[in-house]
């Protein structure tokens, strides 16, 4: 007896139910908590689609970090909620929106059912060339060799987004510390967790990074874990956010992209193209890029969650 259909069917039903619920429920706080749950369920769907790398990313970023971000926002916006909720549209607007959204879904469903057989795929090409990268994980090979440009630009996206977030700081707080100040409750629950979990998280993160070359995992998942651990320590009040004017913070942000660019340009004389790796050196170079990126991603993600500077620096 095969239980896969049962698992898949229930999973799809649950995902859709929670998704509809996060849209329908009145209370925003409940909706964002629901969204975090939804992210975790979606990660299970990714496992069922044999995309463990995506599952890890979805669980860490989709469920975890996005959840934290939205929950914090929901708490801060709670007082305004009833006011804005009064702007709810008329029933016929809702009906029209439902019909149109349904039409889009229907069209997509038809497209899904008519996708060509056999499905086009680049898997054979990846398999053919993966040996030259020395990597065992095809997803990592795509991210850091075949489509390294996307990955480089994505690191740039994170930096741009952070610059954009920082640009929102009120002038008087420019250069100061992001987010509110968190008081340490020495015997509190959060401090309890924040003392125990981060060291374990660091070991797991480095594990995820290290096996990423050959098994599911890599710098994004590892960086996200590190960011989560740092955030935990900050929110428990065990440590404070650095001021955004500090040079080491800025250097930490761009190190990943800078190393990526330098190795990329070194590829021009040594491997014949920008972002190419010399024969036999691909794997160590990729690991160097990933290690640098992991740290930059961790710092950037954590600072993105914390938001623009809201406090003046101490000095």
């Amino acid at each position, binding site marked *: 007896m095969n239980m896969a259909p049962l698992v898949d069917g229930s999973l799809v039903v649950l995902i859709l139910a929670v998704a509809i619920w996060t849209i329908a429920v009145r209370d925003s706080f409940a909706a964002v908590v629901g969204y975090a749950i939804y992210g975790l369920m979606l990660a299970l769907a990714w496992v069922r689609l044999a995309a463990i790398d995506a599952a890890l990313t979805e669980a860490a970023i989709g469920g975890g970090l996005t959840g934290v971000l939205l929950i914090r926002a929901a708490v801060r916006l709670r007082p305004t909620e009833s006011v804005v909720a009064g702007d709810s549209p008329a029933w016929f607007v809702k009906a029209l929106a439902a019909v149109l959204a349904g039409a889009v879904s229907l069209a997509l469903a038809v497209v899904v059912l008519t996708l060509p057989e056999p499905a086009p795929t680049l898997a054979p090409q990846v398999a053919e060339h993966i040996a030259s990268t020395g990597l065992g994980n095809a997803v990592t090979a795509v991210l850091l060799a075949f489509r390294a440009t996307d990955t480089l630009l994505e690191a740039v996206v994170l930096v741009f987004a952070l610059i954009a977030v920082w640009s929102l700081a009120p002038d008087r707080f420019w250069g100061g510390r992001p987010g509110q100040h968190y008081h340490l409750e020495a015997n509190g629950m959060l401090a*309890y967790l924040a003392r125990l979990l981060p*060291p*374990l998280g*660091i070991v797991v993160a*480095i594990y995820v990074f*290290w096996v990423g070359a050959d098994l599911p995992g890599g710098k994004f998942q590892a960086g996200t874990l590190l960011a989560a651990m740092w955030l935990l320590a900050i929110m428990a009040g065990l440590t404070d956010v650095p001021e955004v004017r500090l040079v080491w913070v800025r250097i930490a942000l761009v190190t990943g992209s800078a190393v990526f660019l330098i190795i990329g340009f070194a590829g021009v004389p040594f491997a014949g193209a920008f972002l190419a790796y010399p024969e036999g050196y691909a794997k160590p170079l990729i690991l160097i890029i990933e290690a640098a990126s992991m740290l930059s991603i961790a710092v950037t993600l954590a600072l993105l969650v914390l938001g623009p500077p809201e406090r003046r620096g101490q000095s």
Partner: protein
Amino acid sequence: MSSVVSAALVRSAIFLMFWVALIGFSFSALLVGCVAAGSATWVSLRLLPPTPQRVRLGALVLLLPRFLWQSLLAGWDVARRAFDPRLPLRPGFVAFRSAHAPGHLRNTFATISSLMPGTLPCGEDGNDIIFHCLDVGQPILEQLAAEEKALAHVLDEGTGDG
């Protein structure tokens, strides 16, 4: 000073074992594992400076079967209520006077009790822990007291070495 060194050694050994459990044995992996264990230990010493008062992790493991059973009951309890068409809930708050002083032991107790049927710690009021309950008609306080006693049996406050 020596307590810091010994704590560092013990902790880095634990982290390294954790690493090996994750990845298995291999020389190159062990090198990276040393880096991982080193940084984990450094962070751990910063976040949790060694003090004489500690929770015994080994003793905690002994409590595991009891908690597993409790969490099975808790899941069943929720499922029963969720599927019942009448939605039999009488939610409310209960204040429980904990015998433990604020600190690790109390936090451990609170964490464990969150896995028990019908209770969810959601704040503190002086010496009391405020629990949110699914059904205030149940004998919540008695349950909690029994749980705390079981925990105290296994853990001696202030003498751990973990």
